[in-house]
């Protein structure tokens, strides 16, 4: 029997607003514990939550770009449960009549595009943060920080249409890219700006009957999601092949041990008793508002990539990498304003620039070689002022000093020698010094040509224009024959 997984993902993304979703407290990360709360987000009786306009605008942006249908009217609901991170004992979320439904995100898998359909996108508030320190000062108690309570989240739920752990990984990467392009989420997983839960069941290949699903939580990296799904797929397959049953349950992923452990829950099956929140009026979205937001949507990753292929003649691979982030794409487009060879420029950025960014673990905006400086250096190669080999050396100095290529070549005397007379003289000297090799060459040992080129380059410290060296050398040696 051959099985395949059926996967659905729920992603919670923190919306990049200044203030919380229903009150004016700051959403700033890393502030002093419990310094960003008020009676609204700590759930004091008698307070009135009021929805943040920017949260709605961000959600409209995502809905438009995923082709999700925005509800003319959506409502907020209370999801009731007791847990110490939730001071109100309910989370304001959306249940019936969510913000929008349907839509899709395209991923590139197995050489083609695959559409991942979305079930819905809705808005909700985050809960507080619990800490379980082992120290003595709190006597083993749990500490609560309510700063995160009421931070706006957008939840994006896919249909169960993902058919491999790797597809799940690709989907998450694309979703994050989109959220960051739209500037509605910073995509920072370490700070919890993006969180993912995964549902997985398995079925026989070709079958249409869905199996019993399990849910995996505590997934804090995209690779972690992929690994956890691979683990759970194998586990479920093992159970079925052994004739055992899969129990619907929630598992917690342990990224250190690479195993998923069933979550022990004293409560019986969750009963959230959702009902419309009487404190919040329904949210109304009209065409005019949608049109206004539409005009603010930037060029999206896929469009940008296709444009890069068409406009600059880049390969699919290079275009994909350069459009990973808007900032990197901008860097490329700025660079090629100063040089002519777009493909060479793209290769330089992908190999040389990204290598340094990865080594230093920095973003392109923190890179000290400006796009103008890189473009100008590439232009110097194109014009034969420096050789490709010397360019690498120049570039290294540029990354160390932040200076321009012109400055460095001048300081270090690295400008390529294109002067025919000077090269010709050097060749004469080299031929004179290597008389025996010249004789051997004339005798037919033509392989020695490379040796002479090497000697000329050595004599000029690699600065001679190799093309001119080759031409001149061949001319001179031929005349000796």
């Amino acid at each position, binding site marked *: 029997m051959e099985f395949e997984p059926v996967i659905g993902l729920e992603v919670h993304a923190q919306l990049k607003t*200044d203030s919380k979703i229903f009150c004016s407290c700051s959403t700033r990360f890393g502030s*002093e514990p*419990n310094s960003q709360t008020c009676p609204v987000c700590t759930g*004091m009786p008698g307070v009135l939550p009021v929805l943040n306009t920017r949260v709605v605008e961000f959600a409209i942006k995502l809905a438009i770009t995923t082709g999700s249908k925005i509800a003319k009217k959506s409502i907020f609901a209370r999801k009731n449960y007791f847990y110490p991170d939730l001071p109100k004992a309910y989370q304001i979320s959306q249940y019936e009549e969510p913000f929008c439904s349907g839509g899709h995100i395209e991923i590139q898998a197995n050489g083609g595009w695959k559409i991942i359909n979305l079930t819905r996108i809705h808005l909700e508030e985050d809960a507080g943060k619990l800490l*379980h320190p082992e120290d003595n*000062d*709190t006597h083993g108690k749990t500490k609560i920080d309510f700063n995160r309570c009421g931070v706006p989240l957008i939840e994006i739920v896919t249909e169960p249409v993902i058919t491999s752990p790797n597809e799940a990984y690709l989907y998450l990467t694309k979703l994050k890219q989109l959220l960051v392009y739209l500037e509605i989420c910073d995509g920072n997983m370490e700070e919890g700006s993006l969180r993912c839960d995964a549902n997985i069941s398995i079925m026989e290949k070709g079958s249409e009957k869905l199996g019993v699903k399990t849910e995996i939580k505590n997934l804090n990296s995209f690779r972690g999601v992929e690994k956890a799904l691979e683990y759970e797929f194998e586990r479920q397959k093992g159970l079925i092949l052994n004739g055992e049953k899969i129990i619907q349950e929630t598992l917690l992923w342990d990224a250190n041990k690479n195993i998923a452990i069933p979550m022990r829950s004293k409560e019986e099956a969750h009963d959230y008793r959702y009902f419309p929140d009487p404190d919040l009026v*329904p949210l*109304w979205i009209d065409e005019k508002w949608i049109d206004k937001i539409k005009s603010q949507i930037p060029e999206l990753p896929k469009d940008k990539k296709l444009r890069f292929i068409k406009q600059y003649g880049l390969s699919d691979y290079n275009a994909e990498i350069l459009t990973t982030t808007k900032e990197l794409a901008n860097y490329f487009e700025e660079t090629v304003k100063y040089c002519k060879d777009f493909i060479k420029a793209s290769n330089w950025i992908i190999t040389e620039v990204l290598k340094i960014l990865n080594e230093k673990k920095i973003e392109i905006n923190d890179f000290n070689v400006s796009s103008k400086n890189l473009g100008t250096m590439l232009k110097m190669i194109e014009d034969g002022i420096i050789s490709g080999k010397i360019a690498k050396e120049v570039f290294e100095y540029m990354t160390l000093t932040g200076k321009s290529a012109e400055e460095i070549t001048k300081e270090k005397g690295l400008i390529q020698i294109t002067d025919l007379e000077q090269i010709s003289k050097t060749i004469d000297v080299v031929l004179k010094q290597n008389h025996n090799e010249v004789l051997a060459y004339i005798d037919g040992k033509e392989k020695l040509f490379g040796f002479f080129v090497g000697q000329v380059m050595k004599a000029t410290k690699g600065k001679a224009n190799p093309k001119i060296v080759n031409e001149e050398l061949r001319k001179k040696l031929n005349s000796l024959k």
Partner: protein
Amino acid sequence: MGVSIKEVKKIAKLAKLEFKDEELEKFTLQMNEILDYMEQLSEINTDNVEPLYHVIEPGNVLRNDEVKPSYSREEILKNAPVKSDEFILVPRVIE
């Protein structure tokens, strides 16, 4: 319609409330009286009526994304029965 003692027990549990048996019986009776009273609404045909979620509709109530000062930590922690300088403390909960 109506609720059974078993359901009332479950509702109490979800609300983290505990009752004696005679209280449960009493509340079951009272809850059923309330439900019966509300049941009168079913006499009206609402087939083509949109649900009304709020009396103030339509019309958005929104605020701008502006940060205003939060309460001081001292003020917020005042309500916590057990606390440290920075945190509210509760019995250890481990997921």
